[in-house]
């Protein structure tokens, strides 16, 4: 188990632009998480977004667009934090629970936002901020209070509704809660199968991203305000319909030739 946390924030001054850093062994280092480009591709990173992904046998949880309360840049704009937790595949359950907790928190009291805000402070270093990395890593082990209070469904209920196909929908509180349920209650086995892929985006929650990006990147669960359906759209069903149509056309063509041959 080799947990690592990456933080992106900015300082007050013009030269303290948004930068990813890590803090390990008492040292700060400018360093980005692996697979970041691919994860950013399917979210609007300036807005609150959550991505759960797997890459090279690691599990990654990326949370972006966490607006700070008091920290501002020289233009007077609120600075935003982004965090990426990375660990080995075996920790997938803890990552799913934290993703669910953060998703629920975003539609309730935003206590985790405040917690993360407290862990990142203005500082007189190169980047203009410092971070309490341990505090952020501890989030993985903390009791998930928000989930207990806000997800009133049972394991059986979610099992009944579970859909193994890729699904996307408009980002709204109902779908967010459902997604959190799935993350909490789904079999390790089901997620395990998705995680066995070499690189994959499991969930993506964001503000403005077109559904085409979710489809292109084969996202398992995607929520965006640019998806035009409040209900889940089952993507594999569309794909299946397309395959059925091709099969049907194929049969018609074959029948046409068979009839032609029989007549001659």
């Amino acid at each position: 188990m080799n947990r690592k946390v990456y933080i992106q924030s900015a300082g007050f001054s013009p030269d303290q632009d948004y930068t990813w850093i890590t803090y390990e062994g008492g040292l700060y280092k400018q360093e980005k998480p692996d697979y970041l480009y691919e994860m950013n591709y399917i979210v609007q990173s300036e807005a609150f977004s959550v991505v759960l992904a797997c890459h090279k046998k690691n599990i990654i949880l990326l949370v972006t667009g966490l607006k700070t309360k008091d920290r501002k840049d020289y233009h007077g704009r609120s600075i935003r934090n982004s965090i990426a937790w990375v660990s080995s595949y075996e920790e997938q359950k803890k990552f799913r629970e934290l993703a669910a907790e953060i998703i629920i928190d975003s539609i309730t009291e935003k206590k985790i936002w405040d917690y993360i805000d407290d862990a990142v402070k203005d500082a007189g270093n190169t980047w203009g901020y410092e971070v309490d990395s341990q505090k952020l890593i501890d989030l993985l082990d903390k009791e998930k209070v928000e989930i207990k209070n806000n997800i009133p469904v049972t394991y059986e209920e979610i099992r009944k509704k579970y859909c193994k196909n890729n699904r996307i929908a408009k980002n709204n509180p109902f779908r967010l809660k459902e997604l959190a349920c799935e993350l909490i209650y789904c079999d390790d086995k089901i997620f395990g199968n998705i995680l066995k892929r070499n690189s994959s985006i499991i969930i993506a929650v964001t503000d403005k991203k077109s559904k085409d990006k979710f489809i292109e990147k084969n996202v398992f669960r995607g929520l965006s305000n640019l998806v035009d359906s409040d209900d889940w759209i089952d993507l594999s069903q569309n794909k299946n319909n397309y395959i059925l149509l091709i099969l049907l056309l194929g049969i018609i063509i074959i029948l046409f030739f068979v009839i032609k041959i029989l007549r001659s």
Partner: protein
Amino acid sequence: MNEVNICMFGPRGVGKTSLLTTMYEQFENDISNAKLQLTPDLESASILQERLADLKSLFATDEVFFQAGGLLATENVNIFNFGLGKLGEKPTLKLKFIDFPGRYLDSNADKDDKETVNKFVSQSQGVLIAIHAPALMEKQGKFNDDINRPMQIADFFKNNYTKDTIKQPRLIILAPIKCEKYIHNNSTDLIDNIKREYKRLLDLFNSEGLMDKITVVITPVQTTGNIVLGKVEVVKDTKDRNVPQFYFTKNNSCAVYAPKDSEQPLRYLLRFFLKLHLSSQENCWGIFSFIRTWLGLDKHLRDAITKFASACKRDKFFVVLQCERWL
């Protein structure tokens, strides 16, 4: 669809997204473009719509002095796609504006980031360099290096624009933004300061191997029209360095959102493509091969572009600095 790339450089908070917002809005509102249409894709449209509301909301404030840096700073490369074509028909040209965070040009920038920006610039037919006009003009320009970073931009182009790498013409647009105060003052200090502060970059473009390939224009943009710089306060940052804070004010209590000249960069860009099309025998096409199919087949589209491009402004603020032959 044929595709054109336009790289955008400039400090965070200068207003690059606002420039695109007002460019699109002014284009749509200009009745002389009756035969052309510019259509942002879904993601771009929704971001630009939000930015437009931000810009308009600046006029609703009761505060005398306020900061106007926009709501969101760019953390990553942002791409804004527009389709351009004849009115009522499917767009035939994709204009791809690529907005880079300033840190991509830092000497200590991540290797992947550097490669990304180098790749995009080599594939871009146009480059827009947004200039924070108050940083350039106020306090004798002493904060210009910190904010606009002209040396860093010059160094970047020194590595990417050489006689061997630039085979086809390119258009460089220097666009001072938040320049309402200086345009209203009617003084040419703005242009003189650009020429002085960006001398290293301009000298590079004017070097022997590049001078006949790089067209450079200055097109000042007033993204709000009626909000001007009010005051500059200097504060200390966490490293005890002086940092400016720019405060803006409305022209008068009844001032309304009225952007000016935001569409000029687009007019120059299309004028540049048109000229390349007309003088096709002179070039090897390379990254401009799209022009042949895009404008070569459709006379009506060509006429509409010609009309739109003919309204490129030329006065003491809109200046062609070199290589006018491609305009």
